[in-house]
């Protein structure tokens, strides 16, 4: 699991470093990373995933729909899929040598009956 948040080095000098040696990527949907300066922009990075629903879950959700309201199975599934799409975006960013993604946006579309495409895109940058 890639950490999506990072403490700035200046603000918390006494905190122990994160023992997990995975690259830390800062993600923000504003145009800047607050508290840091962007030194280089590396272009648009994208990540997407197409996910179909499990047939059993789908039928259960259809039954739940008798009364309407929240469909928990879909909520969980889409959450997982979106995390997956974001991880792919992060991999793209790492491949370009960036350490942060700014101005992240999400898009969702139906590609087929019962399948959704979840798409995340943003600008890879190097921050200091």
């Amino acid at each position, binding site marked *: 699991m890639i950490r999506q948040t990072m*403490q700035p080095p200046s603000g918390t000098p006494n905190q122990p470093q994160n023992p997990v040696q995975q690259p830390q990527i800062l*993600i923000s949907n504003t145009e800047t990373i*607050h*508290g840091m300066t962007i030194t280089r922009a590396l272009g648009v990075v994208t990540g997407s995933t197409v996910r179909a629903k499990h047939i059993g879950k789908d039928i259960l959700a*259809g039954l739940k729909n008798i009364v309407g309201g929240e469909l928990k199975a879909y909520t969980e599934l889409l959450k997982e899929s979106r995390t997956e799409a974001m991880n792919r975006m992060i991999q793209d960013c790492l491949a370009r040598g960036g350490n942060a993604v700014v101005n*992240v946006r999400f898009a969702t579309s*139906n590609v087929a009956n019962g399948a959704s495409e979840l798409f995340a895109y943003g600008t890879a940058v190097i921050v200091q």
Partner: protein
Amino acid sequence: MREDFAVFSWLPILLFSVLPLLFSWLYGNYYQAKKAEELQARESAFLAQHGRDNIHNISTLIPPKPITSCGLVMANISVGTSWWQTMIGRLHSIIGGNITLFDRVLSYGRKEALQRLREQALQQGWDNVINVRLETSRIVSSSNNGRSSAFEILAYGTGIKHQ
């Protein structure tokens, strides 16, 4: 004798078409109203506890404060209209106009997504969330062909910490 048989042959059709709709109408309205009430209570409890709202649609804080760290916060929900609402919605779409039943479901979904965003921001330790965006998409079901419509609502923003 023959007429009796006709009545009994209608029974299964009645059982599988009208009764679920009736149930959907009676219990669905109650269930959705209950959920909306619970959400209202959660919202007002949150505001009473913290005294202010912690999510903002603009990309800066007013008044501006020095920000020390930031990160993405997301919350989502998928909501569906009940069978009854879907049927009435279809009838409505013939004559056009405002389908108030769908309004209710979607506005509940949006409010719930925003409330989850607030709670998630608090849980992850952010002081505020800025630049909040809402996104809605329709979920198309593979089975249960077109009988019900479901929507997914995503709320996301940048969580910030300030001094």
